[in-house]
């Protein structure tokens, strides 16, 4: 075999290998993404529980309405029938939009966690940092998924977060921290749900996964 044909053969083999791996790769990517989103949600739930353990009763009265969350404007499916009708790329775009909307607020939470007027401050601080890392990993992973899925359009919704301070006094800071976290907990559940639907939608070759 001449050198040129040998090279071509090697390239062809490699490309075939990559193509076959890519077919599996999307499933693995979504599997990994859904595991990350699950972790995100469970982290936020445990954070909420930590905060609730020593929450002043007046705080519950002061707590803003959940409709005040900065992501409430995003149109999402409200039940299973609606959600299962949404195409995959739109599901992915919803997940990515939500994820993107929380990168700045989480940075704020992370910076405020260390000075929180709460006895569980250290635990809260470390969990918040972990939350931030996970969100970044998931964002990168969803980028890969997006490119793998080969969607034509990238219609991410913009959900800006304009607040840059949780408040002046420690009580309002605590209350606002709790409120932001609650918004995030819900959005993390949305992301997790969408990604798990996406995962089972893509895993047609392996029905035992779903």
């Amino acid at each position, binding site marked *: 075999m001449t050198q040129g044909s040998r*090279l071509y053969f*090697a390239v062809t*083999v490699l490309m075939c290998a990559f193509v076959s791996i890519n077919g*599996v790769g999307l499933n693995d990517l979504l599997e990994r993404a859904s595991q990350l989103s699950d972790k995100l949600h469970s982290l936020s739930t445990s954070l909420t529980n930590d905060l609730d353990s020593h929450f002043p009763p007046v705080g519950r009265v002061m707590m803003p309405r959940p409709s005040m969350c900065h992501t409430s404007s995003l149109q999402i499916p409200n*039940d299973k029938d609606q959600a299962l009708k949404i195409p995959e790329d739109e599901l992915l775009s919803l997940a990515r939009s939500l994820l993107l909307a929380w990168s700045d607020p989480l940075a704020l939470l992370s910076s405020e966690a260390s000075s929180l007027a709460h006895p569980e401050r250290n635990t809260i601080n470390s969990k918040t940092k972990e939350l931030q890392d996970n969100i970044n990993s998931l964002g990168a992973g969803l980028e890969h998924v997006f490119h793998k899925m080969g969607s034509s359009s990238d219609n991410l919704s913009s959900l800006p977060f304009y607040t840059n301070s949780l408040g002046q006094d420690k009580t309002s800071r605590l209350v606002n921290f709790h409120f932001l976290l609650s918004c995030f907990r819900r959005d993390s559940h949305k992301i997790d749900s969408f990604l798990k639907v996406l995962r089972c939608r893509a895993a047609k070759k392996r029905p035992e996964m779903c």
Partner: protein
Amino acid sequence: FCLDQCFIFLIFIQIKMVPPGKPRLTSCRSPEKETFTCWWEPGGDGGLPTTYALYYHLENSETVYECPDYRTAGENSCFFNKNDTSLWVNYNITVVATNALGKNISDPVEVDVVYIVQPNTPENVTAVVVHDEQGPFVRVSWEKPRTADTRSGWITLLYQLRVKQEKDKEWEVVGHLYNILHMLKWSKVAVVFYIPRERSLWIMITIFSVFIVLILTWTLNVKRNSVKLCLLPPVPGPKIKGFEKQLLKSGKSEEVFNTLVIQGFPPTTDYDELLVEYLEVYDNEEQELVLDGKDLSEDCMKSKSPSDSDSGRGSCDSRTLLLEKCMEGREGSGSGSDQHQYSQHGETSWASTESSESQGPEPGSPESADGCGKTWPVVFSSPQPQTHHHYQVGAAKPAYHSVPEILNHSSPHTTPSNYHQLHHQDIPQQEGRFSKPACRHSQSYNQFNLDGVGTPAPGVPPSPSLEYVEVQRVNPENMLLLRPLSDPNREPEGLDCAGEDYSKVKEVTNNILLLQRDTSHQCVDYYSQDLDNQADQCTTQQPPHPCKPAVHQSNSRMPHEGMRVMGNGYVDSTVLMPSY
């Protein structure tokens, strides 16, 4: 007596009838994330029949709805079916208890359906004891709850097996299984996991390394020569530069010997002095340039054409001679003028002599009148010019110098007259032959040379030889008339000494070679004598051209180093001439 008893009886009746107690929502639960149910407990009916109503409103609206279904889930419950269930939105639920005396409202509860998901129990859970060669083990099997929609991924179930022996109080968690297998083989240890992710990673790594290996092999193969060279460098063998075995095979010994000849050997010192330049007739490049006729302006050299009929008169400064000739050619000088415009060699002189006789004053003659520009012909020059300017081909000392292709002196002996005739004949022919306007003379000269003299053996470099000339006299035009020493017509030395003797080089300054007229009988002289006469002649005559050095490049260095004074007082400059 009746009054007291009646009083007590009345009091008892009034306490019993009160409004209902405050109901309390105990729990809400969604088994599949599609419906949910809320339960409450009544607070007390107050002795009267009490009805309960559940009211709710969603977080982003004020519209209050009442519970759609009080029956499906049982007593004191509210069931929200699929249509009434919205996810990711808070339900504000309250229960109102009403009786005849009043009503009571429970505390509101905020519920988000997704947070109250609690799947049903697995179905058909069976545990069977199986006997194996390894021992008895328990096989547990189950099915997923019917209501859970794991197929679409709407909910994800994680199973956990716990065991405890009958007498134990606590359950022991045996294994976790993420969603897939519904059967767990349990023998106190076994845990089954499925991790597809790592396998595909290994596959990718393997493919990548194979690819890298293939690329390396291919690259090495392509570059195997250079790799071999790097690892096993070749040992150089003995080799003569320019020497090829093919030449030996071809049998032409001359070519072989030619390659062995080293150009530039024997080494001569580098003399760029005035005298060297002065004496040197021409060098290769200039000659060729002239022949080509290309670079007339700079490299063309002219030879002055002494129109004197005397032999030995030849002012041959290589460069200027040729240049002037070329200029003349450009100006469309006459045909005959070319004849005497052979630079550098004594040939010029004799040629010009001949032509001048026939043609009268030549365009070159004015240059003769320059006087100062004249120099002597290089020793180099040609076979000795005689008084008649005949070349003696094959003379004892052929005076060719350094231009092998042009000057051939191993040519057979021909009669001077023939030679001369040839020359004359050739010239007109060649004038017509060479259409190049300038420096025709040079070309014809060259041609002449080749034709008339014959061709030497190819490739054999001419032996560097020299022709000693002596200054015969200085004519009124400040022209040095030179005469080869081997000229038979030359007067004996002694007589020369009696007369004017300009063959002593006084000094070389400013590119001027100063000769001294030696009137003494002593011919043995050295060039260290004064040479004022020459300079005076220059100034008095006021030649049209300034007394410029004939030599273009030279330095003020005294030519002593390169010169070897012969016994007869003449300067032997052969050693100075670079070999071409």
